[in-house]
């Protein structure tokens, strides 16, 4: 399912990151960073909620607006029942949608917001996502302080939050079109191998987007998936070639950009809902504003497993949503 937009723009963004991302190569592109994992809160979950509040505050400050000026707040994270988004929404007091598509939540939010802005139902919207390494470890893996060895295919959940302000004011980055993905499941059961789980969903969404819009890969200056990791990236490139006969040029993956994979101990790269938008809003948008990139296709991918589904030895379904972003001429 693909649709085009005439009048939707991402006017402003806000990004907050934790200590590992601060040591990464993109540190200068983030608005705010922390040196610890608690941010003066008592628990990691409350800390993650604070990340969302911070990123929204940054957006509001940049726009010189207050929360009463915002029509809708859409937010997603990885925690059970969206704990951190819900508490952030409670503090903000803006009309609120909580969404879950795992690490594809960022683009899912952008699509929902774009549709409502385009339809004129709302004037503006703030879309947020967050992830926190320690809350994700606690929920999906082992206690944070437990040092069991992990396979090389593991990804490292990003600590951070990214928010975007969308409206019909023609400034910033244009949301040109979007494709809603289909859930794919090619039989991978290993939750430590999420790149392989999500690559088929990403491939199908890219293929469908190009087909629906009748475009070639070369139409885009950059196709950006988030977040397959260094191994998933290779799998996607070959899968795309053999399955759809599309050669991915100008392609990169946010998981491999947010950290220094050589020197940081992050296995095959970053993950978590915040990874893709942090790289996009921070680094990619700055390149777009300098006109070094004009058209970017952001494909956020999500692995839709839970602790129960993994323990029940089920195969892992995955989803990917694509959104086409353009520089405002």
């Amino acid at each position, binding site marked *: 399912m693909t649709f085009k937009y005439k009048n939707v723009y991402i006017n402003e963004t806000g990004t907050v990151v934790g200590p590992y991302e601060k040591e990464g190569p993109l540190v200068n592109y983030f608005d705010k960073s922390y040196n610890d994992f608690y941010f003066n809160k008592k628990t990691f979950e409350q800390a993650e909620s604070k990340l969302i509040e911070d990123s929204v505050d940054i957006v509001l400050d940049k726009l010189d607006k207050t929360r009463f000026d915002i029509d809708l707040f859409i937010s997603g994270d990885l925690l059970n029942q969206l704990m951190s988004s819900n508490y952030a929404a409670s503090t903000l007091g803006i009309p609120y949608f909580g969404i879950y598509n795992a690490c594809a939540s960022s683009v899912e939010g952008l699509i929902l917001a774009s549709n409502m802005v385009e339809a004129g139902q709302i004037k503006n919207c703030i879309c947020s996502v967050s992830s926190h390494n320690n809350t994700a470890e606690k929920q999906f893996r082992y*206690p944070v*302080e437990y*040092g069991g060895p992990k*396979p090389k295919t593991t990804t490292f959940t990003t600590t951070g939050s990214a928010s975007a302000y969308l409206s019909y004011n023609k400034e910033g980055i244009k949301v040109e079109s979007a494709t809603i993905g289909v859930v794919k499941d*090619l*039989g991978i059961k290993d939750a430590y191998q999420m790149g*392989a789980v999500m690559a088929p969903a990403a491939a199908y969404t890219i293929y469908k987007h190009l087909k629906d819009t009748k475009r070639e890969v070369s139409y885009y200056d950059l196709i950006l998936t988030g977040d397959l990791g260094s191994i998933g990236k290779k799998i996607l490139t070959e899968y795309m070639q053999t399955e759809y006969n599309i050669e991915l040029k100008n392609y990169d993956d946010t998981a491999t950009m947010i950290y220094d994979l050589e020197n940081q101990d992050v296995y095959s790269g970053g993950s978590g809902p915040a990874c893709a938008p942090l790289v996009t809003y921070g680094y990619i948008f700055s390149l777009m504003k300098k006109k070094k990139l004009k058209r970017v296709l952001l494909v956020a991918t999500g692995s839709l497993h839970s602790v129960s589904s993994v323990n029940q030895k089920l195969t892992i379904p995955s989803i990917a949503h694509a959104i086409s972003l353009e520089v405002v001429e």
Partner: protein
Amino acid sequence: MEKNKYNYLVNKYTPKENRLTNGVISFLIGGSMGVVGELLRRLWSNILDIPLKDTGTYMIITLIFIGCLFTALGFFDNIVNFAKAGLIVPITGFAHSMQSAALEYRNEGLVTGLGANIFKLSGTVILYGVVSAYVFGLIRLLLFGG
């Protein structure tokens, strides 16, 4: 693409784990733990002036204390991650798994958090440890008469 074909593609790009290196590291560190244990036994035997055969418990308690303390101080996970089975198999691994779970859930209440989750990782070891002790004890009794 069919699932088995895709599986083949995935395996092609999945890096191999360094089993030999990991095994050697675990062997050396696990062996060193044995030496440390023996040194602790002799140390306690000297300090407390008790026979060497009675010092096993003192040695185990010391190792558990060190494992818990280092976990609580926040750097034992990095050491375990490096040493792997060399520190997971000895009693330090058991202490580490309980201490890390306790730290993780302490802010969810003493009963619903810490109490309910402290055996999250080590519960399996206790359950199957007891079951296998029972089974092997029974086999020993039946075959060798105790």
